[in-house]
């Protein structure tokens, strides 16, 4: 039967895309200490930008590049007013921004189809056959994931990464040693947003359809849950968190087909996941893979 392998590949693609999102939250929050509660906004900006670019006939590489640039710029513009203040201002600003942007896209049809969203978004790799296409998606997503992971680890293992971490640990002290912390925080936010934009681009080309209802605030909280479980401040943990989360979610869906439970397994998934989060926070508050000492390259 072709179904299970298809399901597995689909799961892999989702875990990969959310893994990229989780990486992007890790540079902002895990690494620099900037709480972004509007992660979904930059995911959405990337998805829409890329969709609009590729729908106009440009290749995927133009789509994902455009997505990263636009999301990155939006990241700077949104964060700049709040980044000068305390972290909580940033949290509130980003949270509000995500919802406002989604509502605008939903209600302003001329931008990108309004409620109906965008259809027929071309794939990055167009291959013959459903199975081959699915494999193609896995390849594209995992190559991207690998590139971002290596890139971010490289940053982490450079004086640049050390500086971002110092800002997280004590911004005033970092300033006292000559670091223009606002500038670096904006950069970190721009990088995180650009990477989230890339994830959005991959998401759009995979689903071939996007609409505003795919970008509810729950997406942001999902990414946070992934990072918390995987290990805040650990890039490997960020990816692992995505695998654990998506694994649970898909596992619950399969259970629905094979088990007869008194509760709807979809709801059971949320219950189990809530428990998992609590267990992690109680017994491994630093996540499955905790932050490691970093040796520079």
């Amino acid at each position, binding site marked *: 039967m072709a179904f299970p392998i298809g399901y597995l590949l689909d799961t892999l693609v989702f875990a990969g895309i959310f893994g990229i999102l989780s990486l992007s939250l890790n540079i902002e929050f895990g690494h620099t200490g900037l709480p972004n509660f509007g992660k979904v906004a930059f995911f959405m900006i990337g998805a829409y930008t890329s969709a609009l670019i590729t729908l106009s006939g440009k290749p995927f590489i133009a789509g994902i590049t455009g997505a990263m640039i636009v999301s990155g710029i939006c990241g700077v513009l949104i964060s700049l007013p709040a980044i000068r203040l305390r972290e909580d201002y940033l949290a509130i600003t980003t949270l509000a921004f995500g919802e406002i942007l989604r509502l605008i896209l939903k209600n302003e049809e001329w931008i990108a189809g309004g409620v109906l969203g965008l259809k027929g978004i071309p794939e990055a790799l167009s291959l013959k056959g459903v199975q081959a296409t699915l494999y193609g998606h896995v390849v594209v997503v995992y190559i991207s994931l690998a590139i971002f992971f290596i890139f971010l680890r490289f940053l982490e293992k*450079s*004086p*640049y990464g*050390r500086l971002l*971490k*110092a800002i997280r640990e*004590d911004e005033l002290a970092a*300033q006292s*040693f000559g670091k223009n*912390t606002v500038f670096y925080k904006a950069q970190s936010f721009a990088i995180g947003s650009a990477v989230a934009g890339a994830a959005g681009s991959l998401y759009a080309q995979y689903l071939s359809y996007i609409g505003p209802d795919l970008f509810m605030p729950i997406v942001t909280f999902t990414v946070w849950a992934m990072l918390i479980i995987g290990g805040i401040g650990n890039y490997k943990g960020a990816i692992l968190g995505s695998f654990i989360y998506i694994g649970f979610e898909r596992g619950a869906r399969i259970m629905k087909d094979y088990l007869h439970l008194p509760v709807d397994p979809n709801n059971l998934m949320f219950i189990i996941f809530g428990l998992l989060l609590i267990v992690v926070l109680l017994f491994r508050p630093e996540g499955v893979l905790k932050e490691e000492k970093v040796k520079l390259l």
Partner: protein
Amino acid sequence: MLKVVDLHKDFGGLKVLDGVDLEVERNQVVGLIGPNGSGKTTLFNVIAGVYKPTSGEVLLDGERVDGLKPDQLYRKGLVRTFQIPRPFRKLTVLDNLLLAGREQIGERFLNVFRLIKWKMQEKELLEKAEEIMDLLNLSHLSDEYAGNLSGGQLKLLELGRALMSDPKIMLLDEPAGGVNPTLAIRLFGKIRELAETRNLTFFIIEHRMETLMNYSDYMFVLYRGKIIVEGEPKKVMDDERVIEVYLGEL
């Protein structure tokens, strides 16, 4: 070198600095003493750009610097340490020191991938950091998270970071607080030596004036936001007002 003119700082209605005037000469070790709550740390915070003064001027080499941010002052050669240490807890002791290094190539995003360039500089910084750890008896803790250090060790790390950053003038807020007395004496000796040989200027807050006496060229006494006495250490120590202020505290 450093000049403060009629400096005021209020917090709400509280006048913490109430017209401070002082001047720190180049290549000297200058002490700032005064009882608890007299405004010493606040004065450092204003000079170092943490707070904006309510009024008054701060001049560094004749140039107005009040209102500048701490990172701008660092670039002008002024570095300070904190009375309550502010380490980067989840960086190692070594990385805490390296971070304080000046104009690091690898701290620019576009240079991150120019590995060879920044690694060369990193190596120089490493040598310097090792010297400093040696001086401060911190070598065995090089690879330890700064967050795991004891209070005294954190004080040493504060001083170490300041030394790493090649300043022209260092503001040290009770650098020897909690540090064992033998090491404290060695530190002050080293500070003296640096001032004489390395073209460095020190402005040091110290609670216990006896400690500072033997190592400073000049002293200011701050009391309730005002400089009440200044001069050579011997003269200051014998001043009636100073004795009164300190006795009054007890």
